């Protein structure tokens, strides 16, 4: 009986290990996601400073020097400020982007004059203090020294520092100033690369799967192709990057850092995934349908094109989307072909230098500037959103369109 007790205890223990393993794995996932989300949410807001702008309608906008005028308007709010260093401290609370915003404001005003409080982007240092990323010690907080802090306190007293929606994060490209940095350029670069990867790898993958599954005779050669594809699927992604570097950049002299080369490299990487998924989808189409088509006089190719392929398409699409989603999150091969450059423009064509979303995350994560931490998390949130959307599409296709025979 003692023995049985022992065995039952061992059984409970074993089961407990299993449950805790599952719970630990799931906990890891949630800790990871929670960490990213909790630090990234704040990046969707940015600090803005309210400035009372008064420009009489009689004034000709073309004659205004925006930089000087902006300084004048800001300094007007604090008439007591006299020394140069104080003035500089006050103006340093604004981002460089504030001047551009002021220019836009002037253009929009259409010579009607301006009167009232308008909001301008604050400097990254101030933004971090407002969000509580850096703590206040006495009269200082991070890079906000006591001189700057007196202005911050004065502005806050009048409720002239506010957190508003971050206009830059999703609409501009990378920048040296954290408060002005955005991921638009990276998203566009990624989309170009993914599009090219899809255009290249999808037809090649589907055609080769069709051939291997339906037309190739079983011999040594087809075995080699098969092992080859299975092994390619497990080659480390960085090796594909080196392939891209050696073939596309050094041999074909395609432009460095371009989404075109990134897309081609990712296409080579995604190809095995698409072939494997397509083969299993094609294999699951019942032979009776094909035989019926052949029996009615259709040729082999007609049967494949009119029956096998359309019936296998949902399965093929599911596999392709999953492969493309993986390519979207891939960073290492893109580093190898030089998509790590600091690019301040949104790429217009797939031949322009660009980064990709995961590479942008890498670049920001590497930056010593602390203000980039929350932006990195925000960029990750956007990347994960894209991945979730792609995977939902794959799940939808699998559940709704795929037929079980």
């Amino acid at each position, binding site marked *: 009986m003692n023995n049985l007790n022992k*065995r039952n205890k*061992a*059984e409970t223990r*074993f089961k407990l290990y*299993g449950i*805790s*393993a*599952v719970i*630990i*794995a*799931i906990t*890891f*996932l949630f800790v*990871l996601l929670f*960490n990213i989300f909790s*630090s990234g949410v704040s990046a969707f807001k940015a600090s803005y400073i309210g400035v009372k702008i008064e420009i009489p309608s009689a004034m000709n906008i073309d004659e205004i020097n925006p930089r000087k005028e902006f300084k004048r308007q800001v300094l007007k709010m604090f008439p007591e400020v006299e020394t140069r260093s104080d003035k500089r401290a006050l103006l340093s609370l604004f981002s460089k982007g504030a001047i551009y915003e002021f220019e836009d404001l002037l253009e929009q005003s259409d010579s009607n004059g301006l009167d009232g409080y308008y909001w301008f982007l604050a400097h990254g240092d101030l933004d971090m203090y407002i969000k509580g990323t850096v703590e206040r010690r006495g009269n200082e907080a991070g890079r906000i020294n006591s001189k700057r802090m007196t202005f911050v306190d004065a502005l806050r007293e009048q409720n002239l520092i506010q957190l508003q929606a971050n206009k830059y994060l999703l609409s501009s490209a990378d920048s040296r100033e954290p408060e002005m940095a955005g991921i638009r350029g990276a998203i566009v670069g990624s989309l170009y690369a993914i599009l090219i990867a899809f255009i290249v790898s999808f*037809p*090649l993958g589907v*055609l*080769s799967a069709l*051939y*291997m599954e339906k*037309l190739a005779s079983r011999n040594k050669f087809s075995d080699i*192709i098969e*092992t*080859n594809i299975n*092994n*390619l699927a*497990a080659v*480390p*992604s*960085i*090796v594909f990057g*080196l*392939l891209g*570097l*050696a*073939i596309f950049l050094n041999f074909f002299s395609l432009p460095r850092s371009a989404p075109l080369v990134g897309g081609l490299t990712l296409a080579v990487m995604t*190809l095995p995934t698409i072939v494997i998924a397509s083969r299993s989808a094609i294999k699951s189409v019942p032979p009776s349908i094909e035989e019926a088509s052949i029996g009615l006089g259709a*040729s*082999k*190719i007609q049967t494949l094109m009119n029956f096998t392929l359309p019936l296998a398409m949902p399965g093929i699409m599911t596999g392709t989307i999953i492969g493309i*989603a993986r390519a979207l*999150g*891939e*960073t*290492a091969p893109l*580093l*190898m072909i030089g998509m790590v450059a600091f690019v301040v423009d949104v790429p217009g064509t797939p031949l322009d230098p660009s980064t990709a979303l*995961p*590479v942008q*995350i*890498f670049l920001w*994560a*590497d930056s010593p500037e602390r203000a980039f*931490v929350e932006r990195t998390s925000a960029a*990750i949130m956007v*990347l994960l959103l894209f*991945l979730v959307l792609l*995977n939902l599409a794959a799940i939808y296709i699998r559940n709704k369109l795929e037929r079980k025979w």
Partner: protein
Amino acid sequence: MTELLYIALFILASYSFMVNKGRAASLGKFNTLHSQPYYHGLYSSILIFLPAIILLIFWSSIQNIMTNLSIRDFFVDVSDPGLIKFYIDSVINYSNGVSSKIIEHDGFMPAVEKYSSLTYTSTILKVIVVTGLSIILLRASIKVVTVDFKARDYVESMFTTLMKFSSVIAIFVTIGIVLSLLFETLRFFATVNVFDFLFGLHWSPQTAIRADQVGSSGSFGAIPVFLGTILISIIAMLVAVPIGMYSAIYLSQYASETVRTYAKPIIEILAGIPTVVYGFFAVITVAPFFRDLGDKISPGTLSGESAIIAGSVMGIMIIPFITSLTDDAMNAVPGSLKEGSLAMGATVSETTRQVIIPASFHGIVASFLLAFSRAIGETMIVVMAAGFAANLTLNPFESVTTVTVQIVGLLTGDQEFDSAKTLSAFALAFVLFFLTLILNIIALNMVKKYREQYE
């Protein structure tokens, strides 16, 4: 100009499709034709398109070679081949308006003019030849439409060729990988001894800026790099194997159907998260956590680049590889074995340990091997969370470097392509490629074995 040519080709091909389809349809009743009108149309489109495309590809590669040769003449006085290539690229970029950089060399502006005029002539000639060819083919294809013409057979055989070509691409890719790595690796071994590379204990690829500097040659003993890679991968396996194995056991042996349908996909999400995200997580969350932990024991024991940080995060990443594959392997074990054991009075845990695991042993080992190969080849986590300096140590609390970190470090940023430093990255990649290849082949064979065993 070239874009216009493509558009013209497209229009011509569509036109011939419509014309030939119409002609075939008007030839006779449907059942007298060998092929449907549609195939006659397709045949003529392909006849126009294919030669034109092949001609265009040949033309541009020959044009590239010819223009390069002719502008090379302007730089005969330059002796360095690397510099000549740079000059030629600059000329091409300047002429195409890609960059506005002008090289300080007497031959530069004449070369630009020569290049532009050559390209212009070639393009004009290309347009004339290709359009002419297409029009001739268009006329020829119209004549060919008869009742007996086997348009379908031709179209289908061309299509089959295309399919064959697609399936050979995978082989081309593998050959491309091997050749591109091998070529640079051999160049590397021309300057560095193979045995020094494989068995040397000191890795510092920095070559000196000045030639007369002391210790300028750099040393390429890769053992510390390999050891670092293996150390981090083993730490990852120590995290992933118990968690992955026990989750697989729980999911396949204990869990109810509902738990299974939800828990398994959730665990698999871990594999779908991009590795750069794990890298960021390692730097921002895990590194401070371990540092604080280390400081409690004795301050300063852990740096932010300790092997254990990258290793444990990588372990989280590879959990799902082990869980899914092990789960599959355990589910492939025939129910009769399991039921037999249970009927004899064994508990589920005894059955699992003594029947299921031995029966699915091949699959489980295969999952370990695949996870290990994934860990060796993983790049972003270690690039962000592990060190760059190569230390010869097995202490998990010290900073080590890995093969992938070195490759990224050596090949990003400013580089001359011929130095031993950059070439060493290819040698490392070559070793990495073969190591993972061998692991994969063994693992795939094992998976095949267990599949065959119970089918």
